């Protein structure tokens, strides 16, 4: 029998992989992809509880999370393109204009 615990563990694993990706990679595209992974992990949590509690609220919230992910991807990739025009790099270590 698949319990809620299974889904929570899967979600925790995906979220942690996303965190490791954000913290260790230097390519900005992969960092954005890792953020998408984390949002997916959150969605799994929301929908698992929505199913187990017999309430549709979790699924509605998952739709909002997907909306925010789409907006984030559009604006994030716009920033990546604008930045690439200026600095010709995707390496975040070279993007240090605002670093103290």
């Amino acid at each position, binding site marked *: 029998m698949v319990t809620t615990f299974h889904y929570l563990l899967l979600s925790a694993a995906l979220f942690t992989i996303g965190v490791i990706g954000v913290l260790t990679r230097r390519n900005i595209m992969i960092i954005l992809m890792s953020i998408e992974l984390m949002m997916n992990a959150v969605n799994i949590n929301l929908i698992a509880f929505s199913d187990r509690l017999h309430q549709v609220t979790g699924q509605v919230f998952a739709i909002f999370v997907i*909306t925010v992910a789409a907006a984030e991807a559009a604006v994030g*990739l716009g920033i990546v393109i604008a930045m690439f025009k200026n600095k010709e790099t995707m390496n975040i270590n070279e993007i240090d204009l605002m670093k103290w």
Partner: protein
Amino acid sequence: MLELVLFYIFAAIAVVSAILVITQHNVVHSAAFLGATLFAVAGIFLTLHAEFLAGVQVIVYVGGILVLFIFVIMLISVERAEHERQSNRQWKLALVTSAILIGEIGYGLYRGRDSLVLPQPIPAPVAGAAVAGNSELVGTALYTVYLLPFEIASILLLVAIVGAVVLSKKRTPAEE
């Protein structure tokens, strides 16, 4: 039993592809494995009886966001980035942070395991019984109880569209 097998198959695909996303050198390969993860998560949604969300996941994530990622990768040259060192200098610190995060989540789940014993999902409806479909339920909730958040989400999308256009458009000589 079938449910368990399906869950393990989709979970294995999701986790393995997610690890490959963050370890591949080539960004295009990472994007491909991200697609595999997204499809597997859609499968997980199906095992949770969220058919509408599984469809939305495939259409919006794979059909929209992932294609957008691949467009940007194609626009930007990737040859140089592939030969550089892929991880930054703080990977040791990152591993420690992730270990703390795993420990924290694990401890929280372990302590809360009793409260996770929730009622089992609704048994399959009797044939012929009128049960509202999943999309119908979600749609009703979205357009009645959650109407205001729904409208705010649409405004957020509008702002994102305008923002993306403004960020990536060429400047005309008059503006400079």
